[in-house]
């Protein structure tokens, strides 16, 4: 059965057929697999309560994914650069969340817990890449650098391209710290909970990262 949007397109195609006076070949692709659940942003506590009940489990998980998907995806994407890798890892993160949400201790924030899973997935992915191809760290960086250089989104924006390449030159953990502070504007306390590092060490790490990036920008 045609959806209202497809029916509208169908009418337009019929009109086009009439105007052009020749048959127009058309087909309708299935509707994108979007959620059957209307999105209502729920508090984490409420999400967890609903997830604990079998009848509202799926709905709660769907809301949870919608609530955090963008933050988690972009956190991962900035680390692995490639969309397909980021897509796979984001799905892996949420599958892990699904499996372990029953055991989630509510003394931590749900948001920081999911972020921690995502961070670990990113680091494991980059490590496995090094192991898989017997690549030293620099070669993984070079591979990511190539992806940045060939990225159509950065084509024509020389300053952004330089910045992204400068960020990629940071060690992985410092890159994480930089991304979380600079792009996600996360509080040091939250970062500390996610990365298991002291606030003081994170501040120092971010400060050094900024200095390094500015050095790269100067000399690149």
């Amino acid at each position: 059965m045609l959806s209202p949007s497809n029916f509208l397109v169908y009418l337009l195609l019929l009109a086009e057929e009439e105007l052009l006076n020749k048959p127009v070949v058309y087909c309708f692709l299935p509707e994108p697999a979007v959620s059957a659940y209307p999105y209502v942003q729920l508090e984490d506590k409420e999400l967890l309560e609903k997830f604990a009940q079998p009848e509202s489990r799926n709905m709660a998980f769907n809301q949870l994914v919608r609530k955090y998907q963008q933050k988690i995806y972009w956190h991962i994407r900035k680390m692995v650069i490639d969309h397909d890798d980021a897509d796979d890892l984001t799905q892996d993160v949420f599958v892990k969340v699904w499996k372990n949400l029953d055991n989630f201790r509510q003394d931590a924030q749900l948001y920081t817990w999911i972020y921690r899973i995502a961070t670990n997935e990113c680091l494991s992915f980059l490590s496995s890449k090094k192991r898989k191809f017997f690549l030293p760290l620099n070669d993984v960086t070079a591979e990511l650098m190539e992806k940045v250089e060939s990225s159509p989104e950065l084509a024509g924006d020389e300053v952004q391209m330089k910045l992204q390449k400068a960020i990629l030159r940071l060690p992985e953990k410092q890159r994480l710290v930089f991304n979380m502070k600079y792009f996600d504007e996360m509080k040091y306390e939250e970062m500390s909970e996610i990365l298991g590092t002291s606030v003081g060490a994170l501040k120092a790490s971010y400060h050094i990262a900024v200095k390094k990036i500015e050095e790269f920008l100067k000399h690149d």
Partner: protein
Amino acid sequence: MKKDLKLSDIPQRNPYQVPANYFDRLPMRVMERTAAQEQKQPTLWQPLRLALVPVVLLLLFVGAYFYSMPDEPEQQMVNLASVSDTEIVDYLSTYATIETTDFAELSTLREQELPAELLNVSATAAEEELEYYNLNHIDY
């Protein structure tokens, strides 16, 4: 100008993009995976199978142990039953005699003077016992 480029001079923006409707579809794609995982959830048979492994191994071990045990005790019973009384008496008179070395061991024991606390008996009580059984004067 390039040499003075600072991080604060660069507009802060996310330089990457995602395919159209990516975030509309992602929740359902994740849920398809979780549904598939749920279908793969272990049934009762899987943990039962895991628990049965050590039990089966134990049974195999016990079985192998009993299977490999020699049948000697049974053979000895058969042999003893088939031995005549005369042969048993002959055997005992030949081999079941007290050797002189046994007495030599006894005499060394005597010389060692075992402490009374080790024997847990008083000297008087020991003397009385020896006298009662007349062990001080044994004739060979």
